[in-house]
């Protein structure tokens, strides 16, 4: 029987021409950060200005995707019903070795085993699991 349970879809991905290169790289397993040409600051998420000096001169730089868990949680009751079959899953904020932070999922391990300050790396194309790009796994 197919009920409403089956009909809740994962929210459609949104992007703009400004952020499209980030997601295009992500689909290939590459993580881009913005670099400010004027002050050298790196930033995620990408925006129209450097949040440090307000320069509009920004370029993309590929980073390796190594970092540490800044904080983490395990979703048992998701905030959106499209994830209810995915629980329990780990939501974490990863601080890249280069500095910027991004919210992501830590996969490939028990979600309750993920801890603050744990080393993680970007999931590579070969590590493929279904789901959004730019997820991380323990080193």
């Amino acid at each position: 029987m197919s009920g409403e349970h089956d009909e809740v879809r994962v929210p459609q991905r949104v992007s703009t021409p400004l952020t499209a290169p980030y997601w295009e790289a992500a689909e290939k397993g590459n993580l881009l950060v913005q670099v400010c040409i004027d002050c050298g600051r790196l930033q995620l998420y990408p925006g129209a200005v450097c949040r440090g000096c307000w320069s509009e001169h920004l370029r993309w730089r590929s980073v390796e995707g190594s970092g540490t868990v800044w904080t983490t949680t395990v979703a048992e009751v998701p905030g959106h019903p499209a994830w209810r079959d995915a629980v329990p899953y780990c939501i974490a904020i990863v601080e890249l070795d280069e500095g910027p932070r991004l919210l992501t999922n830590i996969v490939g391990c028990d979600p309750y085993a993920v801890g603050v300050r744990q080393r993680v790396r970007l999931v590579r194309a070969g590590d493929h699991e279904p789901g959004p790009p730019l997820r991380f796994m323990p080193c």
Partner: protein
Amino acid sequence: MSGTAIVGIAELPPRRSTPGTTTLELLAKVAVAAVADAGLDHLQIDGLVCGPQVGETPQHVPATVAEYLGLRPRYAGMVDLGGATAAAMVWRAGAAIAAGMCTTVLCLLANSRDPAAPRRSPNRNPIREFDVPYGASGANQAYAMVAQRHMADFGTTTEQLMCVPVKERENAQLNPDAVFHGRTITLEDVRRSPMVMAPLHQLEMVMPCGGGAALVVTSAERARDLAHPLVAMLGAGEAVTHRALSQAPSLTTSPLAAAIDQAYRQAAIGPNDLDLLAAYDCYSILLPITVEDAGLCDKGEGGPWVAEHDFSIASRLPINPHGGQLACGQADLSGGMGHVVEAVRQLRGAAGARQVPNAELALVTGNGATFSEEVALVLAAGER
């Protein structure tokens, strides 16, 4: 308000279409131009007023704009007065400066327009784009991540967090209007309630309710002739640092610290002077961080402090005698106004069975998004 001056201006040339741009991107462009016109550095901007952004950012607009611009304003707001919005922003900015809340306010409006796009586009602010794809919708996960970091850094325990709703439920037994009046709970009840986002259990989170709250504010001079004992606002502080948790300057010190510090300074008081704490409490983790940021204990000691502290009206510092939102229920934004209403009620000496004896000075806190948009008020019984 003759002391207010407009020192920077900018416009983006109107175009029939701005395809592919977001309102946030346009706001950034025009902000850069206006601040450059003023000959100021953006670090000198400490106030921000925005307009509504239907279809892009439905809530928390000032925090979203501030974060996008890397600003950390001490006064932030949204004006929603249609075609009068811009003019309304100007005098509000002047009033905020005159009140000592900030020195320099950026008033920002923009509108992206793409006639080919659906009339009401889906939300497309940074949280929607960068967080939602990972199953991170809503507030629960963000507060859980704040709690997790506090536990990792300071050894705060789940038991210490779980005692917050237990104590607030106890207080609510003197408040017949609380949704949980007549229903006390134990630590074991909290532990057995469903885990929602580790480490937070369902009973450590507010229950959404319907309801409402209102206040009437006037001058101290006018207040003297009115029916109730005067309750004065002695100080206020505001601080906005981020919208998305990934952009927070710190997970364990919140912008409440700066907001409370300013409110204390305006009121010329300190934490030891307080008779009442009306602390915003949408989740258990709010209390340890609030008492730390209010200077009631050292940073990191909030867990043991809330576990040992007596929240009741018999305490040297009662906390949320009405039960707080965790025990009263949260009627959306009016739940936060409940803390102000309770403080006024107590300072009037009109709290009945739950009256705090000799309540003269109260600290009220407000919290928006995830420790993102913070306000503190010092209220007093009578004039000083």
